[in-house]
């Protein structure tokens, strides 16, 4: 096995280069279903992050104890327990948000992203790295969920972070933005097709940025060949 990944590369992998939602396209079910607003996306992202950090940590701790042939059922048990835990805690402390997200919280269990990280990373790495990887991957997912939610909410409804106070407390009313009551949004953004289109646009944008960065890097690597400065 190669040398363990550095923290930096775990972080950049989770958030950008190996973003589980934009690159691996895992966890599409919650992505498509809950991103009707930025607040929902953020809430779902945070819940997913909590589960993935806990499950990564646990899986890493027991990685030498669990025999390969039963590792998948063990992962499922661990993940299901933490999801139920998160669900209970949410019902107890964020009841209003739970009423919005309720159904989808239990679906975190079947989010392939989480079992994917347990299998691909946590079961092969030390606890500190596994925890950090969970955090990075969760952060990456949260960013995608919140951005897509914000996009769909803004285009479809003309608001941003509407009802954010349900999640973050009363101060969050300050970050709620509205284009006004009369705004007639593009309904398609809120409907399921809007999620696919929005996700497609986000993936395209990420690939464009990657391509641009690659070209810049290539241009910088061979400066002698080109005499004219490359267009910025």
């Amino acid at each position, binding site marked *: 096995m190669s040398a363990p990944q550095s923290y930096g590369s775990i972080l950049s992998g989770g958030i950008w280069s190996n973003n589980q939602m934009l690159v691996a396209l895992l966890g599409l079910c919650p992505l498509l279903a809950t991103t*009707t607003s930025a607040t929902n996306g953020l809430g779902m992202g945070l819940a997913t992050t909590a589960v993935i950090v806990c499950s990564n940590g646990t899986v890493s701790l027991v990685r030498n*104890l*669990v*025999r390969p*042939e*039963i590792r998948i*059922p*063990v992962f499922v*048990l*661990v993940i*299901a*327990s933490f999801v*139920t*835990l998160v669900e*209970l*805690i949410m*019902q*107890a*402390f964020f*009841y*209003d948000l739970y*009423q919005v997200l309720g159904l989808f919280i239990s679906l975190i269990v079947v989010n392939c992203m989480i079992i994917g990280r347990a299998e691909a990373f946590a079961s092969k790495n030390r606890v500190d790295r596994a925890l950090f990887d969970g955090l990075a991957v969760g952060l990456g997912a949260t960013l995608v969920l919140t951005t897509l939610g914000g996009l769909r909410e803004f285009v*479809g*409804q003309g608001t941003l972070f509407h009802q954010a106070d349900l999640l973050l407390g009363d101060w969050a009313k300050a970050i709620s933005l509205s284009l006004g009551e009369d705004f007639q*949004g593009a*309904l398609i953004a*809120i*409907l399921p097709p809007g999620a696919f289109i929005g996700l497609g646009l986000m993936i395209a944008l990420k690939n464009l940025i990657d391509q641009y960065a690659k070209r810049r890097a290539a241009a910088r690597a061979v400066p002698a060949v080109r005499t004219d400065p490359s267009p910025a």
Partner: protein
Amino acid sequence: MMTKAKSILLSGVVLGAFAIGGVSLVAVTHGSVGERIADNQYQAMKRKLDTILPAEQINNDPLQDSLRVSARDLLGADATQVYRARHDESPVAVVLEPVVPDGYAGPIKLLVSVLHDGTLGGVRVVSHHETPGLGDKIEEAKSDWVLDFTGKSLTNPPLEKWAVKRDGGEFDQFTGATITPRSIVNAVRDTLLYVQQQGEALYQPVETETATIEGGQG
């Protein structure tokens, strides 16, 4: 062979240990926050009831004074909860939780309060699956449509006018969504009919929590 049996046993034990560990974790958490969750549900329900009941006329707790009734034809479900609001012993209102079976995208749950004189104290949508941006205007948060029910009764408008405007009735429909408002108007009317039919029976005190009223031919 021995090692194989041993390995199977070991796997079983490890798996069992994880199952026990997971279940205990959930059980402990549930034990410690269960009360809080129940309280949240109670408070949320109470807030909802307060918006459709004349709070100043009530001095009992309708949530503690409930009744389970069964009238599938009019209330849409085999069991419907009825909360009774009173002032001392005199009846003030009942709140029912009818289900609209024929929503555009599945059943819609309502909360309907009917004052003792037969007028509506208010209607709220508890849960639904209607199309965002079209049918979801039935939510109080999205439009005022559902507030129009307040103060209506079986004589105001008259029974035959209990329909959306497209069907020759009194109630607005939404652009692009007629099925949703139509089914809700029908369900609210049926709820009023049920309350009228039952009369004082809905206010009868019950000895046990599981008391039921059967019937409701509609």
